């Protein structure tokens, strides 16, 4: 166990980077995903088309490819950003597509009957979205969004491949010195599991609080 004590400092710092990437990219992905869904269900065909293309693009290109493109191709195009922010932006853009799908599945749980009833009562489209559709869609989307957040946290490990010093790359570095892969990566894996568990529990609590009484 001594090997962890000796390098506790860098490991904690790396874990901090992992958590920071997950939190910032997660918040950004939820915000962007909501905007994409709004465009996706809007009555404006151009917005709907753009949102559809956005989701299709990010769902059908591997994250690693996007990360490598962003880290190696963007500087060539004259866009210079430090590594970690670049990875956070790519993660946020990528996971936003999945958040959008999660929210859209929530929207689909709101029956057309309720939307029709709100129209019959004289609600405008915006009122109907704000008071009837969105509140119910978000409630139904809590668990699916939680799952996207877990996937996002796991995906931060891919940033190691483009040189970001987060938990996985720090574990890898430690292993090069200590040569104890099973021990080191088991511990790293347990830390990821703990993060996933925390997110899952958090989503479960939020869901309980906002659940529609049945």
């Amino acid at each position, binding site marked *: 166990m001594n090997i962890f004590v000796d390098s506790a400092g860098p490991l904690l710092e790396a874990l901090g980077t992992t958590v920071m990437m997950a939190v910032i990219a997660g918040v950004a992905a939820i915000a962007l995903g909501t905007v994409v869904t709004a465009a996706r269900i809007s009555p404006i065909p151009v917005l709907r088309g753009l949102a559809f293309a956005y989701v299709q693009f990010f769902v059908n290109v591997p994250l690693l490819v996007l990360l490598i493109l962003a880290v190696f191709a963007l500087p060539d195009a004259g866009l210079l950003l430090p590594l970690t922010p670049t990875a956070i932006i790519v993660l946020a853009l990528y996971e936003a597509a999945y958040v959008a799908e999660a929210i859209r599945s929530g929207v689909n749980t709101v029956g057309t009957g309720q939307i029709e009833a709100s129209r019959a*009562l004289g609600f405008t489209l915006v009122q109907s979205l704000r008071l009837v559709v969105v509140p119910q869609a978000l409630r139904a989307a809590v668990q699916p969004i939680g799952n996207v957040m877990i996937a996002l946290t796991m995906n931060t490990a891919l940033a190691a491949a483009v040189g970001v010093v987060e938990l996985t790359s720090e574990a890898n570095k430690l292993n090069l010195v200590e040569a104890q892969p099973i021990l080191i990566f088991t511990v790293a894996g347990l830390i990821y599991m703990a993060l996933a568990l925390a997110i899952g529990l958090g989503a479960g609590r939020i869901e309980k609080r906002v659940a*529609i009484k049945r």
Partner: protein
Amino acid sequence: MASSPTGTSSSTSAGTATAMVQLTDVQKHFGSHHVLKDVSLTIAAREVVVVVGPSGSGKSTLCRCINRLETITSGTIAVDGVDLPAEGRALAKLRAEVGMVFQSFNLFAHRTILDNVTLAPITVLGRSRKDARAEGLALLERVGIADKADHFPAQLSGGQQQRAAIARALAMKPKVMLFDEPTSALDPEMVSEVLDVMTSLAGDGMTMVVVTHEMGFARRAADRVIFMDDGRIVEEDTPANFFDHASSPRAQAFLSKILPH
């Protein structure tokens, strides 16, 4: 226009036949499918019209066109003398004057029963929360579910949900109430509690269009029965005349299927 919580038109005295709903030469297509054909219909204030007809004859479409949930291909529809515009804010306002009750209740699942009733008056009419709640509670009292005010829709029986839906529509003080098969989704033992509310509403002078195959209700509460077939109004008469001696063969064939022998 001043009106009591029942939506009873205060300017119309019983017996005067002011047109509350007027359809003139209405045509409705879904793509190439001609669903309403040359429909002309005048419904007086305080009149209760029951619409019957075989499945697919256009009864629901007729209701949905009257408050423009569906657009019509041609013709005009006027409510209380005002032509319904095609879309936009003016339409939303006019739509609020026509209450609609659906077969599947369509209550807002995430809101309490009282919130369901007050949401539209607060949002659309700009009523204060306090007034809306007081009126909402009175309406729930009237339909017999005041004790369910703080429950959520899924906690109510079908009959209670449908009565809540009626209260929700009444909260807008509509000039006309449309009912599209309001009891078809209910267990038999809950049908009468909903019909009783509708009968009392009719007795209070509400103008009503009711799609239903509940002949008891039609005989009790309707002034007129309209028989639709294949998108056309084929026959109209008083309930007694229609059920006992319908004149068209199609209406007779229809009645022989739905009436107990």
